[in-house]
């Protein structure tokens, strides 16, 4: 789900190959050097108190020189392998690439699927969908402090630095669900700044994009309508956007299709109705320090709000 050792794309695979090379080389070097220490220990402790060492200095010096040359050769080989792997990891295939702008916030992720046509752009939060087999360019920056974008099954991490935008390439080879997590310490809720990655076939991916482009569904019943009213008239809409309604805040995740996501509060809770209800009423209990304040709604209001959120598929 979140592991360097289970690569699911070409970049992660080539890093994994380098890891295996390094691991086995290191294991051999460790055994040889520690073996040398133990051998020296065995020889040195066997020698009696009056015995003078017999090994001439010149042969000791020769041993040191040979070991040093061997060390250098191994290091140059590993350096070459590292540069080689680095070339593979950083190589780019611009054609038919999916382009995603990632913006870090304390403590959630903003994802925008770019498109030449502004109306076809997709804005979402805390959940990435990727098609299999297509290269993806991820352009990262931050709105506040430094974060780091990391999906270990797909690619190494890249820091999100305010004032800078940098890009990395990745590609998913197989369908599945993975997890990404912020890897640069970013304050109180650094531990709860994760996101889900859903890798799906091209057709499903396009379908998902279409679904995300649509504005929010209108509330079907009275309870949900009441929920929408609370959302826009109470303070929710100051920070959150729900496209197609009056809620247009920019400071917090876009909730237009929030019920379609796998998890809640940046990978902190499963996205079920009871969890949504609990998190809306007291986010500080689950995520102490989060920017979202506690909301002393009445039970009826909370039920209405939850009913409305349930409709945001």
């Amino acid at each position: 789900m979140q592991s360097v050792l289970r690569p699911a794309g070409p970049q992660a695979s080539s890093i994994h190959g380098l890891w295996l090379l390094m691991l086995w080389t290191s294991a051999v070097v460790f055994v040889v050097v520690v073996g040398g220490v133990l051998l020296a220990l065995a020889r040195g402790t066997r020698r009696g108190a009056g015995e003078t060492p017999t090994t001439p200095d010149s042969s000791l010096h020769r041993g040191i020189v040979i070991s040093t040359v061997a060390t250098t050769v191994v290091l140059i080989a590993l350096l070459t392998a590292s540069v080689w792997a680095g070339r593979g990891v950083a190589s780019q295939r611009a054609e038919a690439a999916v382009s995603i702008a990632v913006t870090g916030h304390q403590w959630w992720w903003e994802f925008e699927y770019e498109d030449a046509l502004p109306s076809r752009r997709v804005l979402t939060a805390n959940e990435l969908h990727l098609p299999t087999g297509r290269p993806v360019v991820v352009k990262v920056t931050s709105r506040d402090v430094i974060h780091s974008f990391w999906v270990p099954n797909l690619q190494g991490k890249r820091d999100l630095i305010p004032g800078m935008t940098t890009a990395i390439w990745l590609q998913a080879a197989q369908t599945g669900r993975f997890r990404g997590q912020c890897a640069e310490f970013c304050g109180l809720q650094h531990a709860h700044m994760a996101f889900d990655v859903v890798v799906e076939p091209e057709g499903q991916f396009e379908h998902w994009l279409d679904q995300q482009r649509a504005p929010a569904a209108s509330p079907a019943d009275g309870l949900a309508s009441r929920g929408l009213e609370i959302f826009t008239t109470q303070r929710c809409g100051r920070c959150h956007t729900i496209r197609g309604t009056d809620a247009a805040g920019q400071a917090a995740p876009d909730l237009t299709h929030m019920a379609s996501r796998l998890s809640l509060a940046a990978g902190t809770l499963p996205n079920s109705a009871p969890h949504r209800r609990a998190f809306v009423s007291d986010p500080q209990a689950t995520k102490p320090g989060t920017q979202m304040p506690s909301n002393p709604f009445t039970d009826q209001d909370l039920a209405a709000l939850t009913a409305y959120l349930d409709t945001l598929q």
Partner: protein
Amino acid sequence: MTIGHVVDGDWQELERSWADPSGWRRLTSSIDHKTIGRRYLITAFAFFLLGGVLAAVMRLQLARPGHPLVGPDLYNQIFTTHGTTMMFLFAVPVMQGLGIYFVPLMVGARSIAFPRLVAYSYWMFLFGGVFLYVSFLLNAGPDVGWFSYPPLAESLYSPSKRADVWAQLITFTEVASLAVAVSLITTAFKLRTPGMTLNRIPVFVWSQVVTSFMVIFAMPAVMLASTALILDRLVHTHFFDVEQAGDALLWQHLFWFFGHPEVYIIFIPGSGLVSTIVTTFSQRRMVGYLAVVLSLVSTAFMGFGLWVHHMFATGLPQLGESFFTAASMMIAIPTGIQIFCWIATMWSGRIRVQTPMLWILGFFGIFIAGGLTGVMLAAVPLNTQLHDTFFVVAHFHYVLIGGAVFPLFGAFYYWYPKIAGRPLGERLGRWVFGLLFTGFNLTFFPMHVLGLHGMPRRVYTYLPELGWGPLNVVASVGALLMAAGVVLFLVDVLALGSRATADAGANPWSAGTLEWATASPPPPGNFLHPPTAGGREPLWDNTPAQPVVTGLRTDIREVLVTHVLDAEPDHRQRFPDPSAWPLLTALATTALFVGSIFTPWAVVWGAIPVFVTLVGWFWPKSAGDAGTQPWPIRSRTLPRPGEAPAAGGVL
């Protein structure tokens, strides 16, 4: 002429001249390098215990997912204070403390150079550490990491005083360590006993010299950075805040230009300790002395060219990064050379596996593993996966605990008889070693695996479904074993105070360096007649007759100053008397530093007491015996390298 603590008139006079003042003035005014060195060691060890307690709390918190023991606010203060303590209040000062105590003894000097400056540095170190822990207890402990990256450390995201406390602690410890560095370099270059030419300086002294030069070049970078951060926070200078065209990445360059050499500032003295203990317990001169010394020097140079490997994830150009990969990998070569020289020394020596040597064997196992994961982290692609995960936590604890703390415990057992006059318990020592070695590997080895399975650093908790629970439990159990080992060590040290044990004698390990040429513990003034060096291991090379320096006065504090290259006598120097001015100056400096996190005016008004105390410190003395005296050179019977020492030769 023989060497030893001979009680005669001259000895008594020497001790009277060099003794600490008695009563409470001993506390405030001592400038004896042994007193200050002991204070440094005890204080740094106390901070090691505090940092260890914080580590234990972190291990308890992470023992299971979603553990409610400490919340994020406290956890962030704990891990920041733990890192800051271990780097700035333990690792650097404890090594410098060993240098303060042993460098003068090992070069055959009666004192450290600039003893009052060294006293001042101790007070600054102590006050800085107390300042940090008082802040921590007042819920104002720093909470943005020991690296304190802006913009998180800027006032917009850290409005409380916590980040200021961190930045100002840096200033305290930098002032202290720069003062010690200057004193150690001067001691090693100008106060060496005749005969100790550059190529006869003990490897431990070389390691202290090299480290001190690194301190002088590395510390200004972080002082500049932390001062700029304080200015950003205090008077909004916009060095690092992005909203006002500052640069967040600039901090990282400045910080790591210091931060990476810092690792070697901790490891190089550790490797000097390994050389010392391996030589003594192999009863053989170091094989490849020149190669080892040059390795230390080249490590120091290369250590300044690697800092970017802490920033591989920031997205710097690939070609530029690959230079730093190459440098980071190649620094393994000088360290490898040292390891091969140690193996060759053991190979051709007569090894006694006593407690100090046991720690060195532990060092080999742990440090080599840490060095190899370091080579992995130098590779950019692998680094982008492992950076800021528990793999890195495992790596640097293998390097620093393996490369510095294990040799340090070896040194405690090795030098404790010299400092206290009594040996530590051999049997108990083996238990301490066993507990720490097992506990260490149990704690930190699983962290490699946790990192590979995606566990990031600096998280106060994690979700159960991520599957990190079991290995975290193992790590926490290991931490308990380590804690038990440290407690047992304390029992050994403290219980010995009341237990009557055998006198250690001047040279219990039959070692070859000059700290063993005087009584245990060394008397004030160290040497009545400083022994000269007829080789790299003077006590082995000069037997049975040890040439000594005569003609130094004992009725006043007089030391012999020698030339840098060949340590030929230059002149006699009158050294200063005990004084409370260093303490008063440190108090005034502390008021300025602490005040300046609240108002910039503290710098203005706080400078006045600093000025006044400095005037008191440097108030001109009357002429007379003070100052430089020509050295009466009557004859030079110093043995040249390769020559047999002249029997009973007297200068």
